[in-house]
């Protein structure tokens, strides 16, 4: 039972969505773009989120695209994680999607919703970070296309009126060899202790991480260390751990000390698999 009252809008076009947002802003009403809504509903129930309106983007045609053309994979923000997995056009993304929540929830959770969520994990962003995907944002100033690595710093930095319409990924990336590992406290359906995604472009290894810190990240520092093949692996990993972009999470899922242990070993195992150990 959500006691807070709010209005519900379901625009049919990008323009309608943005205009609605703008109108509400002018009326001093806080509006949220709404994808699957799972996080918004559960947080609203606990009064952890205050807003006056939601703008459901699921009927905007562009937000429902899931196709490859012109050597680009286009994924609409309102595509559900289940659809990602069922179509499986982007295997690494399918893996990341499958690591999120449970199957029935994934019938509702959307790509855009997960990336813009408030929980610390948001595993769906990891493949896009690794592939230098482009995000199409729509807002009051119109649309813009930006590399995700440029605007994702702990969260997706965007203007208030903006929402993700689509994410574009170069086809060359989606079939690259990858490794994806999610480690949990005990059971599969849980927030991660750590989630590690690696892709390999030729000899270069890229890595993105969730669960280790209070936000998902891909860091050049970490990748530089990983790729210094001449340095002993243990030293590289020690260097990585002493240069993390934030403190290690310490919560119900696991202590910081345990996460540290799990991440080191997960990285060791994953590098051994993709051939980055030596």
């Amino acid at each position, binding site marked *: 039972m959500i006691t807070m009252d709010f209005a519900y809008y379901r625009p049919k076009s990008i323009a309608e969505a943005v205009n609605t947002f703008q109108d509400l802003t002018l009326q001093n009403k806080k509006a949220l773009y709404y994808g699957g809504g*799972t996080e918004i509903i559960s947080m609203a129930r606990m009064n952890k989120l205050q807003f006056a309106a939601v703008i459901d983007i699921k009927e905007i045609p562009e937000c429902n695209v899931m196709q490859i053309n012109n050597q680009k994979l286009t994924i609409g923000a309102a595509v559900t994680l289940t659809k990602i997995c069922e179509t499986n056009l982007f295997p690494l993304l399918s893996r990341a999607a499958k690591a999120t929540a449970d*199957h029935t929830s994934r019938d509702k959770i959307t790509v855009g919703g997960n990336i813009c969520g408030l929980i610390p994990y948001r595993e769906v962003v990891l493949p896009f970070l690794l592939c230098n995907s482009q995000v199409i944002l729509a807002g009051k100033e119109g649309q813009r296309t930006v590399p995700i690595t440029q605007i994702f710093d702990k969260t997706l930095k965007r203007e208030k009126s903006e929402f993700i319409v689509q994410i574009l990924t170069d086809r060359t990336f989606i079939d690259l060899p990858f490794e994806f590992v999610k480690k949990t406290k005990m059971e599969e359906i849980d927030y991660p202790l750590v989630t590690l995604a690696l892709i390999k472009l030729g000899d270069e290894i890229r890595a993105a991480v969730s669960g280790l810190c209070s936000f998902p990240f891909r860091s050049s520092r970490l990748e530089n260390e990983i790729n210094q093949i001449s340095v002993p692996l243990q030293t590289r990993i020690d260097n990585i751990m002493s240069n993390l972009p934030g403190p290690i999470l310490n919560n119900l899922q696991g202590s910081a000390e345990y996460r540290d242990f799990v991440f080191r070993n997960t990285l060791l195992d994953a590098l051994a698999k993709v051939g980055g150990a030596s």
Partner: protein
Amino acid sequence: MFQVLSKSLIELEVNGEIKSIVVRPADTLLFALREQLGLTGTKDACGNGDCAACTVLVDGWPVKSCLMLAVEAVGHKITTIEGLKDIPIQKAFLDKFALQCGYCTPAFIINSHALVTIHPDANDEVIKEWLQSNLCRCTSYEEIKEAVKWVLGQ
């Protein structure tokens, strides 16, 4: 643009029937189904999307109705347990003793029915992926798996 600004009359298509109900935009589909339409086969057991006892089908796919707004369901086809009659999975749950207290049963049946319909060739991994969404506190889950596999084998 479809919009519901405050407590309003909406139409939902549930089990093939068009139903008019008054809801607040903040009301969940679960609340509307149970409290407005009296379809109490859909259970409220956590309100947080964790147990899946409130699972219904939305356009044929299982969805947790506690994590969906009633207004969001406008324009979609909703199927609740009351809309499923004498389907094989119901018989299988009965014959395989795949239920005890029965509180999670309607949702397990809804989800299992969607699974065997969408993936009639589901292997163990797919069965697990789908049914892991639902919590059961009484059975050992083995009985439920047996019931699903029996239907898949038909």
